[in-house]
């Protein structure tokens, strides 16, 4: 099962993308417990593009696709903005004290920890960020 949508790189589009994901979840009858990982990944990576990957004067286009295969769900977020690899962001110190705690880089860190696999590549002037996690046992 595959679904695709495209939106401008604008924070106001986040609820529309979340709804796209939730509709896929219902249509594919996926277990509710796993939805948080994908909702979080969608928000964190999309908002990264909105906040850091959108040059002044031009609004990149963001393509979002979901593909379910053998119980593994892949979320791909692609944009035509400037080259940016979120995996190069420094990981936050998750053992720092309350006063020293930083939130920068935390979103990408959460995504890396909660997904089974993440990858980035720059292809044809596009950033492609792909995330995969097993969401149910493969059908025998």
């Amino acid at each position, binding site marked *: 099962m595959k679904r695709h949508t495209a939106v401008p790189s604008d*924070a106001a589009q*986040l*609820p529309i993308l*979340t709804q796209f994901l939730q509709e896929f979840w219902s249509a594919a009858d996926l277990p509710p*417990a796993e*939805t*948080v990982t994908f*909702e*979080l990944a969608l*928000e*964190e990576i999309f*908002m990264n593009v909105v906040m850091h990957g959108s040059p002044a004067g031009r609004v990149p286009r963001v393509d979002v696709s979901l593909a379910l295969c053998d119980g593994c769900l892949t979320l791909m977020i692609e944009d035509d903005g400037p080259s940016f690899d979120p995996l190069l962001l420094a990981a936050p110190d*998750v*053992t*720092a*004290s*309350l*006063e020293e*705690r930083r*939130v920068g880089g*935390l*979103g990408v*860190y*959460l995504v890396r*920890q*909660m997904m089974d696999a993440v990858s980035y590549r720059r292809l044809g002037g596009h950033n492609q960020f792909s995330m995969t996690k097993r969401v149910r046992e493969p059908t025998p």
Partner: protein
Amino acid sequence: MNVRLESIGLTTVVIPQGRLDFGSAAGFQSQLEQVLAGAGSKPAGVIIDCAGLDYVSSAGLRVFLLAARASQRADLAFAICGLKPAVREVFDVSGFSRVIAVFVDRANALAQTGPTA
């Protein structure tokens, strides 16, 4: 996201309901700032009861972090309670549950945040 407030003795209980994401984080932050400012210098505490919170992202975690820091500086007791599994996972993976007091439910949080009257 809706936010309700309740007073129990000298403790203010903040009850967010729904989704704490990029879209709702700024509004929740200003509500918490008002609660913390209103607490003044009285011996008081703030509990955020998350039993109705379905989702939190890093934008939401940032709000909890700022509120916990502001409480510490103002010498107020600060605790979070009632995390649903989806929210608990984000708190645990981020390490936030190690620096912010997290309790199973409101009764436990109230018992730990000092006198209630």
